[in-house]
Protein backbone atom coordinates (compact mmCIF):
# COMPACT_ATOMS: atom_id res chain seq x y z
CA UNK A 1 0.00 0.00 0.00
CA UNK A 2 1.41 3.36 -1.01
CA UNK A 3 1.41 6.32 1.33
CA UNK A 4 1.93 9.87 0.20
CA UNK A 5 2.20 13.10 2.11
CA UNK A 6 1.46 16.16 0.02
CA UNK A 7 2.50 19.54 1.40
CA UNK A 8 1.34 18.55 4.84
CA UNK A 9 1.28 21.13 7.59
CA UNK A 10 0.20 20.50 11.15
CA UNK A 11 -0.42 22.99 13.95
CA UNK A 12 -1.11 21.82 17.47
CA UNK A 13 -3.91 23.63 19.32
CA UNK A 14 -4.69 25.69 16.24
CA UNK A 15 -6.58 28.86 17.11
CA UNK A 16 -5.56 29.08 20.77
CA UNK A 17 -2.69 30.96 22.42
CA UNK A 18 -0.94 27.60 22.70
CA UNK A 19 -0.76 27.14 18.94
CA UNK A 20 2.45 25.53 17.74
CA UNK A 21 3.56 24.75 14.22
CA UNK A 22 4.92 21.21 14.27
CA UNK A 23 5.52 20.40 10.62
CA UNK A 24 5.15 22.36 7.43
CA UNK A 25 5.31 21.68 3.73
CA UNK A 26 6.19 18.02 4.23
CA UNK A 27 5.92 15.95 1.06
CA UNK A 28 7.22 12.48 0.44
CA UNK A 29 6.01 9.12 -0.76
CA UNK A 30 6.44 5.65 0.64
CA UNK A 31 5.95 3.09 -2.12
CA UNK A 32 4.65 -0.32 -1.13
CA UNK A 33 7.38 -2.53 0.26
CA UNK A 34 9.90 0.24 0.92
CA UNK A 35 11.92 0.69 4.08
CA UNK A 36 12.08 4.35 4.99
CA UNK A 37 14.01 5.81 7.88
CA UNK A 38 13.07 9.22 9.27
CA UNK A 39 15.80 10.83 11.31
CA UNK A 40 16.13 14.22 12.90
CA UNK A 41 16.83 16.03 16.11
CA UNK A 42 14.43 15.93 19.07
CA UNK A 43 11.44 18.15 18.31
CA UNK A 44 11.96 18.11 14.56
CA UNK A 45 8.43 16.81 13.97
CA UNK A 46 9.12 13.12 13.39
CA UNK A 47 6.47 11.85 15.77
CA UNK A 48 3.92 14.29 14.36
CA UNK A 49 4.50 12.86 10.92
CA UNK A 50 3.98 9.34 12.23
CA UNK A 51 0.54 10.21 13.52
CA UNK A 52 -0.47 11.36 10.06
CA UNK A 53 0.32 7.99 8.56
CA UNK A 54 -2.68 6.33 10.21
CA UNK A 55 -4.89 9.40 10.45
CA UNK A 56 -4.53 9.91 14.20
CA UNK A 57 -3.85 13.51 13.27
CA UNK A 58 -5.38 15.25 10.32
CA UNK A 59 -3.26 17.79 8.50
CA UNK A 60 -4.14 21.45 8.99
CA UNK A 61 -3.02 21.98 5.40
CA UNK A 62 -2.27 19.64 2.52
CA UNK A 63 -3.29 16.01 2.35
CA UNK A 64 -2.21 12.49 3.14
CA UNK A 65 -2.98 9.67 0.76
CA UNK A 66 -3.10 6.28 2.46
CA UNK A 67 -3.81 3.57 -0.07
CA UNK A 68 -7.13 4.57 -1.61
CA UNK A 69 -8.07 7.00 1.18
CA UNK A 70 -7.32 10.70 1.02
CA UNK A 71 -7.12 12.47 4.37
CA UNK A 72 -7.30 16.16 3.55
CA UNK A 73 -7.21 19.23 5.74
CA UNK A 74 -10.52 20.51 7.05
CA UNK A 75 -12.54 17.44 6.08
CA UNK A 76 -14.34 15.41 8.70
CA UNK A 77 -13.24 11.82 8.34
CA UNK A 78 -15.43 8.89 9.17
CA UNK A 79 -14.56 5.25 9.55
CA UNK A 80 -10.85 5.65 10.04
CA UNK A 81 -10.69 2.12 11.39
CA UNK A 82 -10.19 0.80 7.87
CA UNK A 83 -7.06 2.94 7.57
CA UNK A 84 -5.72 1.96 10.97
CA UNK A 85 -6.24 -1.70 10.24
CA UNK A 86 -3.74 -1.49 7.41
CA UNK A 87 -1.19 0.73 9.14
CA UNK A 88 0.21 -0.82 12.31
CA UNK A 89 1.97 1.68 14.53
CA UNK A 90 4.42 0.81 17.27
CA UNK A 91 4.65 3.94 19.38
CA UNK A 92 7.54 4.97 21.58
CA UNK A 93 7.57 2.86 24.74
CA UNK A 94 4.68 0.71 23.52
CA UNK A 95 4.73 -1.25 26.78
CA UNK A 96 2.65 1.58 28.25
CA UNK A 97 -0.33 0.50 26.18
CA UNK A 98 -0.74 -2.95 27.76
CA UNK A 99 -3.87 -3.33 29.86
CA UNK A 100 -5.44 -6.80 29.67
CA UNK A 101 -5.32 -9.51 32.31
CA UNK A 102 -3.27 -11.84 30.18
CA UNK A 103 -0.71 -11.35 27.47
CA UNK A 104 -2.85 -13.41 25.10
CA UNK A 105 -5.89 -11.15 25.54
CA UNK A 106 -3.77 -8.08 25.03
CA UNK A 107 -2.32 -9.36 21.78
CA UNK A 108 -5.84 -10.25 20.61
CA UNK A 109 -7.22 -6.79 21.44
CA UNK A 110 -6.17 -5.21 18.14
CA UNK A 111 -7.30 -7.98 15.78
CA UNK A 112 -10.62 -8.42 17.62
CA UNK A 113 -11.28 -4.68 17.32
CA UNK A 114 -10.83 -5.03 13.60
CA UNK A 115 -13.27 -7.89 13.41
CA UNK A 116 -10.95 -10.89 13.38
CA UNK A 117 -12.70 -13.92 14.98
CA UNK A 118 -11.39 -14.76 18.45
CA UNK A 119 -10.08 -18.20 17.55
CA UNK A 120 -8.08 -16.75 14.69
CA UNK A 121 -6.77 -13.93 16.91
CA UNK A 122 -5.59 -16.47 19.51
CA UNK A 123 -3.89 -18.44 16.80
CA UNK A 124 -2.05 -15.30 15.72
CA UNK A 125 -1.06 -14.58 19.33
CA UNK A 126 0.45 -18.03 19.65
CA UNK A 127 2.39 -17.60 16.42
CA UNK A 128 3.61 -14.11 17.20
CA UNK A 129 4.73 -14.68 20.76
CA UNK A 130 7.43 -16.97 19.41
CA UNK A 131 8.31 -14.55 16.65
CA UNK A 132 9.01 -11.75 19.14
CA UNK A 133 11.22 -14.13 21.08
CA UNK A 134 9.11 -15.11 24.07
CA UNK A 135 8.07 -18.61 25.20
CA UNK A 136 4.46 -19.64 24.77
CA UNK A 137 3.89 -19.89 28.55
CA UNK A 138 3.98 -16.10 28.70
CA UNK A 139 0.60 -15.98 26.96
CA UNK A 140 -1.27 -16.86 30.16
CA UNK A 141 0.66 -14.45 32.38
CA UNK A 142 -0.34 -10.93 33.32
CA UNK A 143 1.58 -8.42 31.22
CA UNK A 144 2.39 -6.48 34.38
CA UNK A 145 4.42 -9.39 35.78
CA UNK A 146 6.87 -9.22 32.88
CA UNK A 147 10.12 -7.32 32.65
CA UNK A 148 10.31 -4.08 30.69
CA UNK A 149 11.91 -5.73 27.67
CA UNK A 150 9.37 -8.56 27.63
CA UNK A 151 6.50 -6.08 27.90
CA UNK A 152 7.88 -4.25 24.89
CA UNK A 153 7.88 -7.49 22.90
CA UNK A 154 4.31 -8.27 23.91
CA UNK A 155 3.21 -4.78 22.84
CA UNK A 156 4.94 -5.21 19.49
CA UNK A 157 3.26 -8.59 19.04
CA UNK A 158 -0.05 -6.83 19.72
CA UNK A 159 0.54 -4.52 16.78
CA UNK A 160 1.83 -7.25 14.48
CA UNK A 161 -1.24 -9.36 15.27
CA UNK A 162 -3.30 -6.87 13.30
CA UNK A 163 -1.33 -8.07 10.26
CA UNK A 164 -0.86 -4.57 8.87
CA UNK A 165 0.39 -3.83 5.38
CA UNK A 166 2.41 -0.88 6.60
CA UNK A 167 4.44 -0.95 9.77
CA UNK A 168 5.29 2.34 11.45
CA UNK A 169 7.95 2.21 14.15
CA UNK A 170 8.64 5.14 16.46
CA UNK A 171 11.97 4.39 18.10
CA UNK A 172 11.05 0.78 18.78
CA UNK A 173 14.34 0.01 20.50
CA UNK A 174 14.69 3.06 22.77
CA UNK A 175 15.75 2.02 26.26
CA UNK A 176 16.54 -1.60 25.39
CA UNK A 177 19.87 -3.32 25.96
CA UNK A 178 22.12 -3.80 22.89
CA UNK A 179 21.13 -7.42 22.39
CA UNK A 180 17.42 -6.66 22.65
CA UNK A 181 17.83 -3.80 20.18
CA UNK A 182 19.49 -6.00 17.64
CA UNK A 183 17.00 -8.85 18.03
CA UNK A 184 14.00 -6.59 17.65
CA UNK A 185 15.39 -4.68 14.68
CA UNK A 186 16.34 -7.95 12.97
CA UNK A 187 12.82 -9.23 13.55
CA UNK A 188 11.30 -6.13 11.94
CA UNK A 189 13.68 -6.40 9.04
CA UNK A 190 12.84 -10.07 8.47
CA UNK A 191 9.12 -9.25 8.51
CA UNK A 192 9.74 -6.42 6.10
CA UNK A 193 11.54 -8.67 3.66
CA UNK A 194 9.47 -11.83 3.98
CA UNK A 195 6.02 -10.27 3.92
CA UNK A 196 6.87 -7.25 1.77
CA UNK A 197 5.70 -4.88 4.51
CA UNK A 198 6.29 -1.20 3.94
CA UNK A 199 8.22 -0.06 6.97
CA UNK A 200 8.73 3.44 8.30
CA UNK A 201 11.29 3.70 11.06
CA UNK A 202 11.71 6.84 13.11
CA UNK A 203 14.99 6.68 14.95
CA UNK A 204 17.85 8.51 16.58
CA UNK A 205 20.15 5.66 15.79
CA UNK A 206 22.10 6.38 12.62
CA UNK A 207 23.40 2.81 12.79
CA UNK A 208 19.89 1.40 12.40
CA UNK A 209 19.08 3.81 9.59
CA UNK A 210 22.27 2.88 7.76
CA UNK A 211 21.76 -0.83 8.29
CA UNK A 212 18.14 -1.29 7.30
CA UNK A 213 16.73 1.63 5.31
CA UNK A 214 16.55 1.87 1.51
CA UNK A 215 15.59 5.49 1.73
CA UNK A 216 16.18 8.12 4.35
CA UNK A 217 14.53 11.41 5.24
CA UNK A 218 16.14 14.05 7.39
CA UNK A 219 13.82 16.32 9.35
CA UNK A 220 14.84 19.65 10.77
CA UNK A 221 12.57 22.12 12.54
CA UNK A 222 9.39 20.67 11.06
CA UNK A 223 10.64 20.42 7.50
CA UNK A 224 12.07 17.69 5.33
CA UNK A 225 15.48 18.99 4.44
CA UNK A 226 17.12 15.98 2.82
CA UNK A 227 15.97 12.80 1.23
CA UNK A 228 18.05 10.08 -0.34
CA UNK A 229 19.75 6.75 -0.02
CA UNK A 230 21.56 6.33 3.30
CA UNK A 231 24.85 5.82 1.48
CA UNK A 232 24.57 9.15 -0.33
CA UNK A 233 23.49 11.07 2.75
CA UNK A 234 26.15 9.57 4.99
CA UNK A 235 28.92 10.38 2.52
CA UNK A 236 28.40 14.09 3.32
CA UNK A 237 28.86 14.22 7.08
CA UNK A 238 29.26 18.01 7.10
CA UNK A 239 25.69 18.38 5.78
CA UNK A 240 24.36 16.13 8.52
CA UNK A 241 26.27 18.07 11.16
CA UNK A 242 24.38 21.21 10.11
CA UNK A 243 21.19 19.49 11.28
CA UNK A 244 22.75 18.37 14.53
CA UNK A 245 23.13 14.79 13.33
CA UNK A 246 26.12 12.50 13.09
CA UNK A 247 27.09 9.58 10.88
CA UNK A 248 27.25 5.91 11.94
CA UNK A 249 30.40 4.82 13.70
CA UNK A 250 31.53 2.76 10.72
CA UNK A 251 31.43 5.82 8.50
CA UNK A 252 33.24 7.88 11.09
CA UNK A 253 35.97 5.26 11.28
CA UNK A 254 36.28 5.17 7.50
CA UNK A 255 36.62 8.93 7.42
CA UNK A 256 39.37 9.12 9.99
CA UNK A 257 41.09 6.21 8.27
CA UNK A 258 40.95 8.03 4.93
CA UNK A 259 42.16 11.26 6.49
CA UNK A 260 45.07 9.58 8.27
CA UNK A 261 46.19 7.16 5.56
CA UNK A 262 45.47 9.22 2.48
CA UNK A 263 43.78 6.19 0.93
CA UNK A 264 40.25 6.76 -0.35
CA UNK A 265 37.96 3.74 -0.34
CA UNK A 266 35.67 3.17 -3.29
CA UNK A 267 32.41 3.70 -1.45
CA UNK A 268 31.03 4.84 1.85
CA UNK A 269 30.63 1.67 3.91
CA UNK A 270 27.56 1.23 6.09
CA UNK A 271 28.39 -2.00 7.88
CA UNK A 272 31.50 -3.40 9.51
CA UNK A 273 31.52 -6.26 6.99
CA UNK A 274 31.48 -3.87 4.05
CA UNK A 275 34.24 -1.84 5.58
CA UNK A 276 36.40 -4.89 6.21
CA UNK A 277 35.97 -5.96 2.60
CA UNK A 278 36.81 -2.52 1.27
CA UNK A 279 39.86 -2.29 3.47
CA UNK A 280 41.05 -5.69 2.26
CA UNK A 281 40.60 -4.58 -1.34
CA UNK A 282 42.43 -1.35 -0.70
CA UNK A 283 45.26 -3.39 0.78
CA UNK A 284 45.40 -5.59 -2.31
CA UNK A 285 45.45 -2.60 -4.59
CA UNK A 286 48.18 -1.09 -2.47
CA UNK A 287 50.11 -4.37 -2.63
CA UNK A 288 49.77 -4.59 -6.43
CA UNK A 289 51.38 -1.23 -6.92
Amino acid at each position, binding site marked *: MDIQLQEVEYRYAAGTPFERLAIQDVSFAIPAGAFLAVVGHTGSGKSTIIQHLNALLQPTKGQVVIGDRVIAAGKKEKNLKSVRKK*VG*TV*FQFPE*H*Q*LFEETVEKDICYGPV*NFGVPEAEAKERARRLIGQVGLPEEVLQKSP*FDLSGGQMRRVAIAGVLAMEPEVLVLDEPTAGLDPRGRKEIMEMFYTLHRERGLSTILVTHSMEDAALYADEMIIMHQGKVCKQGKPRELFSHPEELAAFGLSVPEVVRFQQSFEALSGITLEKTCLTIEELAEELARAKERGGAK
Partner: protein
Amino acid sequence: MMEKMIFGRYLPLQSVVHRLDPRAKLLFIFGFVIVVFLANNALSYGLLAVFTLVFIYLSKINVRFLLAGLKPVIWLIAFTFLLHIFLTREGDLLFEAGFLKVYEGGVRQGAFISLRFLLLIFVTSLLTLTTSPISITDGLESLLKPFKKLKLPVHELALMMSISLRFIPTLMDETDKIMKAQMARGADFSSGPIKERVKAVIPLLIPLFVSAFKRAEELAVAMEARGYKGGEGRTKYRLLHWQGRDTAALIILVVLAALLWWTRS
Protein backbone atom coordinates in the same frame (compact mmCIF):
# COMPACT_ATOMS: atom_id res chain seq x y z
CA MET B 1 -9.74 17.67 22.27
CA MET B 2 -8.24 18.85 25.54
CA GLU B 3 -6.47 21.62 23.72
CA LYS B 4 -9.40 23.97 24.11
CA MET B 5 -9.75 23.52 27.87
CA ILE B 6 -8.78 26.52 29.89
CA PHE B 7 -9.43 25.30 33.42
CA GLY B 8 -6.24 24.95 35.35
CA ARG B 9 -4.10 26.23 32.51
CA TYR B 10 -1.53 28.91 32.93
CA LEU B 11 -0.81 31.55 30.28
CA PRO B 12 2.52 33.17 30.99
CA LEU B 13 2.05 36.81 29.99
CA GLN B 14 3.30 40.08 31.39
CA SER B 15 0.53 41.97 33.14
CA VAL B 16 -0.31 43.65 36.44
CA VAL B 17 -2.50 40.70 37.35
CA HIS B 18 0.31 38.26 36.60
CA ARG B 19 2.68 40.15 38.86
CA LEU B 20 0.36 40.19 41.88
CA ASP B 21 1.37 38.12 44.85
CA PRO B 22 -0.41 34.74 44.69
CA ARG B 23 -1.64 35.22 48.26
CA ALA B 24 -3.25 38.50 47.28
CA LYS B 25 -4.88 36.85 44.28
CA LEU B 26 -6.15 33.90 46.30
CA LEU B 27 -7.62 36.16 48.98
CA PHE B 28 -9.03 38.45 46.34
CA ILE B 29 -10.76 35.67 44.44
CA PHE B 30 -11.99 34.02 47.61
CA GLY B 31 -13.44 37.39 48.63
CA PHE B 32 -14.87 38.00 45.18
CA VAL B 33 -16.71 34.68 45.20
CA ILE B 34 -18.49 35.79 48.37
CA VAL B 35 -19.04 39.35 47.21
CA VAL B 36 -20.75 38.15 44.02
CA PHE B 37 -23.65 36.97 46.14
CA LEU B 38 -24.26 40.49 47.43
CA ALA B 39 -25.49 41.65 44.04
CA ASN B 40 -29.24 41.38 43.62
CA ASN B 41 -30.39 44.04 41.17
CA ALA B 42 -29.48 45.36 37.74
CA LEU B 43 -27.30 48.14 39.08
CA SER B 44 -25.21 45.93 41.35
CA TYR B 45 -24.86 43.26 38.70
CA GLY B 46 -23.80 45.91 36.19
CA LEU B 47 -21.19 47.09 38.65
CA LEU B 48 -19.86 43.56 39.04
CA ALA B 49 -19.77 43.01 35.28
CA VAL B 50 -17.85 46.22 34.64
CA PHE B 51 -15.46 45.32 37.40
CA THR B 52 -14.87 41.84 35.93
CA LEU B 53 -14.28 43.28 32.46
CA VAL B 54 -11.66 45.65 33.85
CA PHE B 55 -10.04 42.71 35.59
CA ILE B 56 -9.95 40.74 32.34
CA TYR B 57 -8.57 43.76 30.50
CA LEU B 58 -5.80 44.20 33.04
CA SER B 59 -4.80 40.55 32.77
CA LYS B 60 -4.24 40.90 28.99
CA ILE B 61 -5.92 37.55 28.41
CA ASN B 62 -7.61 37.27 25.03
CA VAL B 63 -11.40 37.50 25.61
CA ARG B 64 -12.14 35.22 22.70
CA PHE B 65 -9.97 32.57 24.30
CA LEU B 66 -11.84 32.94 27.60
CA LEU B 67 -15.17 32.60 25.81
CA ALA B 68 -14.01 29.50 23.94
CA GLY B 69 -13.15 27.99 27.29
CA LEU B 70 -16.74 28.47 28.44
CA LYS B 71 -18.04 25.80 26.09
CA PRO B 72 -18.02 22.95 28.62
CA VAL B 73 -20.14 24.90 31.13
CA ILE B 74 -22.48 26.65 28.75
CA TRP B 75 -25.00 23.81 29.10
CA LEU B 76 -24.98 24.08 32.85
CA ILE B 77 -25.67 27.79 32.58
CA ALA B 78 -28.42 27.27 30.03
CA PHE B 79 -29.98 24.59 32.21
CA THR B 80 -30.13 26.78 35.33
CA PHE B 81 -31.49 29.62 33.24
CA LEU B 82 -34.34 27.45 31.96
CA LEU B 83 -35.04 26.05 35.41
CA HIS B 84 -35.46 29.55 36.74
CA ILE B 85 -37.68 30.61 33.89
CA PHE B 86 -40.07 27.74 34.39
CA LEU B 87 -40.04 27.34 38.14
CA THR B 88 -39.95 30.85 39.57
CA ARG B 89 -43.46 32.23 40.00
CA GLU B 90 -42.95 35.91 40.67
CA GLY B 91 -43.99 39.18 39.11
CA ASP B 92 -46.19 39.55 36.05
CA LEU B 93 -47.18 36.64 33.88
CA LEU B 94 -45.43 37.05 30.51
CA PHE B 95 -46.34 33.95 28.60
CA GLU B 96 -48.56 30.94 29.03
CA ALA B 97 -48.80 27.73 27.07
CA GLY B 98 -50.59 24.83 28.68
CA PHE B 99 -49.01 24.14 32.04
CA LEU B 100 -45.93 26.23 31.14
CA LYS B 101 -46.07 29.64 32.73
CA VAL B 102 -43.26 32.15 32.31
CA TYR B 103 -43.14 35.00 34.78
CA GLU B 104 -41.21 38.22 34.54
CA GLY B 105 -39.50 37.47 37.85
CA GLY B 106 -38.34 34.12 36.53
CA VAL B 107 -36.67 35.63 33.49
CA ARG B 108 -34.94 38.23 35.61
CA GLN B 109 -33.87 35.71 38.20
CA GLY B 110 -32.61 33.35 35.48
CA ALA B 111 -30.61 36.10 33.80
CA PHE B 112 -29.04 37.16 37.09
CA ILE B 113 -28.09 33.64 38.09
CA SER B 114 -26.52 32.97 34.68
CA LEU B 115 -24.61 36.21 34.90
CA ARG B 116 -23.43 35.25 38.37
CA PHE B 117 -22.21 31.93 37.02
CA LEU B 118 -20.39 33.63 34.17
CA LEU B 119 -18.66 36.14 36.41
CA LEU B 120 -17.59 33.44 38.85
CA ILE B 121 -16.19 31.30 36.06
CA PHE B 122 -14.36 34.20 34.45
CA VAL B 123 -12.75 35.40 37.64
CA THR B 124 -11.77 31.97 38.89
CA SER B 125 -10.28 30.97 35.54
CA LEU B 126 -8.32 34.20 35.63
CA LEU B 127 -6.67 32.94 38.81
CA THR B 128 -5.20 29.87 37.14
CA LEU B 129 -4.56 31.63 33.86
CA THR B 130 -2.45 34.33 35.46
CA THR B 131 -0.77 32.37 38.25
CA SER B 132 1.64 29.52 37.75
CA PRO B 133 0.66 26.34 39.61
CA ILE B 134 3.78 26.60 41.75
CA SER B 135 2.88 30.10 42.92
CA ILE B 136 -0.66 28.99 43.74
CA THR B 137 0.75 26.24 45.94
CA ASP B 138 3.20 28.62 47.59
CA GLY B 139 0.40 31.07 48.20
CA LEU B 140 -1.89 28.41 49.65
CA GLU B 141 0.79 27.02 51.90
CA SER B 142 1.52 30.45 53.24
CA LEU B 143 -2.16 31.28 53.74
CA LEU B 144 -2.85 27.98 55.48
CA LYS B 145 0.07 28.36 57.90
CA PRO B 146 -2.12 29.57 60.80
CA PHE B 147 -4.00 26.25 60.64
CA LYS B 148 -0.85 24.39 61.61
CA LYS B 149 -1.79 25.10 65.21
CA LEU B 150 -4.95 23.08 64.60
CA LYS B 151 -2.77 20.09 63.59
CA LEU B 152 -3.52 20.55 59.90
CA PRO B 153 -0.60 19.02 57.93
CA VAL B 154 -0.06 22.17 55.89
CA HIS B 155 3.29 21.22 54.40
CA GLU B 156 2.07 17.80 53.30
CA LEU B 157 -1.04 19.28 51.74
CA ALA B 158 1.01 21.86 49.87
CA LEU B 159 3.47 19.21 48.73
CA MET B 160 0.70 16.96 47.45
CA MET B 161 -0.87 19.88 45.70
CA SER B 162 2.31 21.00 44.01
CA ILE B 163 3.07 17.45 42.89
CA SER B 164 -0.42 16.94 41.52
CA LEU B 165 -0.36 20.27 39.73
CA ARG B 166 3.04 19.49 38.30
CA PHE B 167 1.81 16.15 36.96
CA ILE B 168 -1.46 17.30 35.42
CA PRO B 169 0.15 18.17 32.08
CA THR B 170 2.33 15.05 32.20
CA LEU B 171 -0.69 12.84 32.80
CA MET B 172 -2.64 14.66 30.11
CA ASP B 173 0.16 13.96 27.64
CA GLU B 174 0.25 10.38 28.71
CA THR B 175 -3.52 10.01 28.38
CA ASP B 176 -3.23 11.39 24.90
CA LYS B 177 -0.42 9.00 24.00
CA ILE B 178 -2.16 5.90 25.33
CA MET B 179 -5.41 6.94 23.70
CA LYS B 180 -3.67 7.24 20.36
CA ALA B 181 -1.85 3.95 20.82
CA GLN B 182 -5.17 2.19 21.50
CA MET B 183 -6.86 3.99 18.63
CA ALA B 184 -4.10 2.70 16.39
CA ARG B 185 -5.11 -0.76 17.62
CA GLY B 186 -8.69 -0.14 16.62
CA ALA B 187 -10.17 1.31 19.83
CA ASP B 188 -13.05 3.70 19.28
CA PHE B 189 -13.56 6.32 21.97
CA SER B 190 -15.98 8.64 20.27
CA SER B 191 -18.79 6.64 18.73
CA GLY B 192 -21.07 3.72 19.43
CA PRO B 193 -23.62 3.11 22.19
CA ILE B 194 -22.91 4.34 25.74
CA LYS B 195 -22.20 0.84 27.05
CA GLU B 196 -19.55 0.26 24.40
CA ARG B 197 -17.99 3.64 25.02
CA VAL B 198 -17.67 3.02 28.75
CA LYS B 199 -16.05 -0.30 27.97
CA ALA B 200 -13.67 1.40 25.54
CA VAL B 201 -12.28 3.49 28.39
CA ILE B 202 -10.80 0.48 30.20
CA PRO B 203 -7.81 0.16 27.82
CA LEU B 204 -7.11 3.79 28.61
CA LEU B 205 -7.66 3.82 32.37
CA ILE B 206 -5.68 0.73 33.33
CA PRO B 207 -2.40 1.77 31.66
CA LEU B 208 -2.88 5.26 33.08
CA PHE B 209 -3.27 3.98 36.65
CA VAL B 210 -0.40 1.56 36.27
CA SER B 211 1.91 4.28 35.06
CA ALA B 212 0.73 6.67 37.80
CA PHE B 213 1.65 4.05 40.42
CA LYS B 214 5.03 3.53 38.82
CA ARG B 215 5.62 7.23 38.61
CA ALA B 216 4.69 7.70 42.26
CA GLU B 217 7.13 5.02 43.31
CA GLU B 218 9.94 6.45 41.21
CA LEU B 219 9.28 9.96 42.47
CA ALA B 220 9.25 8.84 46.10
CA VAL B 221 12.55 7.03 45.67
CA ALA B 222 14.10 10.01 43.91
CA MET B 223 12.90 12.37 46.63
CA GLU B 224 14.32 10.19 49.41
CA ALA B 225 17.59 9.86 47.55
CA ARG B 226 17.83 13.63 47.54
CA GLY B 227 17.36 13.79 51.27
CA TYR B 228 13.70 14.65 51.62
CA LYS B 229 12.51 13.86 55.15
CA GLY B 230 9.31 15.85 55.44
CA GLY B 231 8.46 19.44 56.15
CA GLU B 232 10.41 19.94 59.40
CA GLY B 233 13.46 22.14 59.06
CA ARG B 234 13.17 22.82 55.36
CA THR B 235 14.14 26.19 53.97
CA LYS B 236 12.38 27.78 51.04
CA TYR B 237 13.82 28.50 47.62
CA ARG B 238 10.99 30.66 46.33
CA LEU B 239 10.01 33.50 48.62
CA LEU B 240 6.83 35.51 48.27
CA HIS B 241 6.96 39.31 48.47
CA TRP B 242 3.89 41.24 49.46
CA GLN B 243 3.93 44.63 47.76
CA GLY B 244 1.88 47.80 47.58
CA ARG B 245 -0.17 46.60 44.62
CA ASP B 246 -1.22 43.51 46.56
CA THR B 247 -2.62 45.64 49.35
CA ALA B 248 -4.24 47.82 46.70
CA ALA B 249 -5.98 44.79 45.17
CA LEU B 250 -7.52 43.89 48.52
CA ILE B 251 -8.58 47.50 49.13
CA ILE B 252 -10.29 47.50 45.73
CA LEU B 253 -12.17 44.37 46.75
CA VAL B 254 -13.34 46.02 49.97
CA VAL B 255 -14.44 49.10 48.00
CA LEU B 256 -16.32 46.86 45.59
CA ALA B 257 -18.03 45.09 48.46
CA ALA B 258 -19.04 48.43 49.96
CA LEU B 259 -20.38 49.66 46.63
CA LEU B 260 -22.39 46.48 46.18
CA TRP B 261 -23.75 46.75 49.68
CA TRP B 262 -24.81 50.29 48.91
CA THR B 263 -26.40 49.56 45.51
CA ARG B 264 -28.20 46.34 46.40
CA SER B 265 -31.86 46.63 47.09
